[in-house]
């Protein structure tokens, strides 16, 4: 016991010393950062919404940094594999992570063991975008707004199910938060991603769904899905006619998906500053802004400190939701 604790401490000390040494070495090269290509790890499969955001951002950042920013998809374990890879990467700024609400707030709360510490193992760079979620129903469900849905759910408790992109995803938690704040019953039906879930809602196999606004937006426009409300505090710029859940009888309700850039902890501050500066310039670019708007994503640039505070706030916000809903995965 004592021995193992001592070994642990010795290891920690060595680790700290090594980190310091790396930091020193890195500081000297920070001036000409970057002098080779940067890998942006996306912890989800190519083609998904996080991947799309990453590719739009990486493209412009490459132009600004003068070095190629390569997107590498390391999907698996709900984003934990990719995040863990970056947490353990050399802290030199050449390996950065496209983090999300899943990797930096939900997974650490939901999973029994997360291989990394969302706050201690990462150096925040910048928040990038906030993507609203949306509550959609099949048009055959006889409800036009959140109030009518709540009435229906209360009239026949346990009859209706809702679909989400999977267990423990931000969309699942949006549904659980909705249930607990409104005091209604709905059975959760998890799918492997938004696509198959959307398919079953379109076919009215499952009548209700919480989805990312971008993935549902085409169906909302064409009327194949009816949007009842968005999950953000304010209405989405791309759909000003859709009310928020908070203004539809569940005050204080707010969930959204966010994307932010992280480097491994111990990355020199000069390098972080350079990356933050590049991310800011990228987000200010009109073509990027245009793409993000079409994608229903709101641009939120931030300082590294603000992102650090944001992660803390998100963990604090979701802790009671996860505990109330008793979501605990192995």
């Amino acid at each position, binding site marked *: 016991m004592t021995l193992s604790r001592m070994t642990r401490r010795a290891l920690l000390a060595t680790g700290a010393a090594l980190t310091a040494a790396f930091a020193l070495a890195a500081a000297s090269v920070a001036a000409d950062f970057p002098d080779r290509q940067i890998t942006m790890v996306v912890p989800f*499969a*190519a*083609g*998904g*919404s996080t*991947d*799309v955001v990453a*590719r*739009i951002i*990486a*493209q412009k950042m490459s132009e600004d940094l003068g070095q190629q920013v390569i*997107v*590498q*998809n*390391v*999907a*698996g*374990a*709900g984003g*934990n*594999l990719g995040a*863990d890879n970056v947490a353990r990467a050399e802290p030199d700024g050449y390996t950065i992570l496209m983090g999300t609400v899943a990797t930096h707030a939900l997974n650490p709360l*939901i999973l029994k063991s997360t*291989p990394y510490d969302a706050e201690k193992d990462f150096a925040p760079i910048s928040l990038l975008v906030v993507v609203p979620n949306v509550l959609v129903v099949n048009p055959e469900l006889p409800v036009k707004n959140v109030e009518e849905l709540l009435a229906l759910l209360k009239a026949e408790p*346990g009859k209706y*199910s809702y679909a989400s992109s*999977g*267990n*423990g995803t931000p969309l699942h938690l949006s549904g659980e938060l909705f249930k607990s704040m409104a005091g209604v019953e709905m*059975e959760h*039906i*998890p*799918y*492997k*991603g938004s*696509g*198959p879930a*959307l*398919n*079953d809602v*379109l*076919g*009215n*196999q*499952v009548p209700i769904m919480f989805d990312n606004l*971008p993935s549902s*937006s*085409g*169906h909302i*426009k*064409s009327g*194949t899905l009816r949007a009842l409300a968005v999950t953000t505090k304010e209405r989405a710029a791309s759909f000003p006619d859709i009310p928020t859940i908070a203004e539809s009888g569940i005050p204080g309700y707010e969930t959204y998906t966010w994307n932010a850039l992280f480097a491994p902890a111990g990355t020199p501050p000069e390098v972080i500053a350079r990356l933050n500066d590049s991310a800011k310039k990228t987000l200010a670019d009109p073509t990027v802004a*245009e*793409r993000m708007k*079409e*994608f229903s994503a709101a641009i939120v640039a931030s300082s590294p400190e603000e992102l650090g505070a944001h992660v803390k706030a998100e963990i604090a916000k979701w802790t009671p939701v996860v505990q109330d809903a008793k979501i605990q*995965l*192995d």
Partner: protein
Amino acid sequence: MDLVSNLALGFSTAGSVENLFFCLIGVLLGTLIGVLPGIGATATIAMLLPITFQLEPVSSLIMLAGIYYGAQYGGSTTAILINMPGESSSAVTAIDGYQMARKGRAGAALSIAALGSFFAGSVSTFLVAIFAIPLTGIALKFGAAEYFSLMIVGLVSSVALAHGSIVKALAMVALGLLLGLVGTDIYTGTPRFTLGIREYADGLNFVAVAVGVFGIAEILRNLEGEKTRTLLMAKVSGLWPTKDDFRRMFAPVLRGTAIGSALGILPGGGAILAAFASYTVEKRISKTPEEFGHGAIAGVAGPESANNAGAQTSFIPLLTLGIPANPVMALMVGAMIIQGIVPGPNVASEQPALFWGIIASMWIGNLMLVVLNLPLIGLWVKLLTIPYYVLFPIIMAFCSIGVYSVNSNVYDLYAVAFFGIAGYLLVKLRCEPAPLLLGFVLGPLLEENLRRAMILSRGDPTTFVTRPISAILLAIAAIVLVVVFLPSIKAKREEVFQEED
């Protein structure tokens, strides 16, 4: 008529010099990566996504689509020549295609695959054009209960896939189902059979397992003796199929096209399932089922047509609903969003040039493929004359690069090695790898949909028979089961085995 003017718009879009050029690049690249074992369309399209940013939306989607169906063509080449499925959907082609190659009929097998694919591609492209919108309605009627019943049909039919002992075939299906359970349970989030390895949390990689049990196992088996090799080289002759071959491929191609077009619309491995289904059907209705597994022409023509037809029709849910049927289609959705196009039911009305342009380009691309590939067959067959000590290391290297590139996951490579050895042992035990792969593909879908249907019905199992489509599918499964175990047919089967032994 609407269809004519729509198609005219499509062909004028796809026929522009620029779009023809990108279509050509797409199918060339697709063929190349299809031929290289392990390197799949998914990885290639993912790598090319950033480049498409600079192109016109139509051009980039035409190119990406070309890579996808080009890979289906190329994949069969590797499957036939070295028993290594270059694409997961050509795993079935390897069974009889490779046996044809071993008998010196590699050229004929390749021509049959190419011509069958072209026919299926042309027909299903028109199906996409005519029925894209109504067919979507059918796909939407498939809920969890219907999918479950469809998977049951698939599993029951898989018994017919085997050409050895029924017990061994069932054992292989069961092993496949068990392997399919590896990974996170989507309903509870519990990791199952992952041995505590987080890299397996999303299950074993299909390409890794397929490359292992088919390809690596075959290499190991070949290393046993150089003798079979020299035999193979000496007998390569006759690139073009004979009149008799044409006569025998005609009906399987038609049936394969029909099966592939139908299954391709359904999300989740349509093309793979179509190839397996077609093989099963051909073997079941063949007058000479004993030929299957020993180089039956129908065993190449049917599945090849089916997987190509499935590859084309899997664009239907993407184009009409914006819902991806497989990982490649998911990437296409990503490509569309990057271009500022929101995939969904509006694409056809808001972007008619894009919608019809892609459809027209598929037919042009299929034509390019057959024109490109027929002359190349002689070249591919020459591959067989490369000595093993050169060919094997190259194959192994490409496999490893390809498998790794999918998820950048080194544990996928360990899986290739493990299943290579396991596959070799299975060959020694005279167990077939094909039913194992089918079980592996269907197992997770079967479980996912069974449990989803049960949750949706709140625990009432009659949901499977009270829903009409599901009931019909279960009835088909029951009929297949009866037919397989009917005394007369059983006797015929046993006869067949005795001939084999």
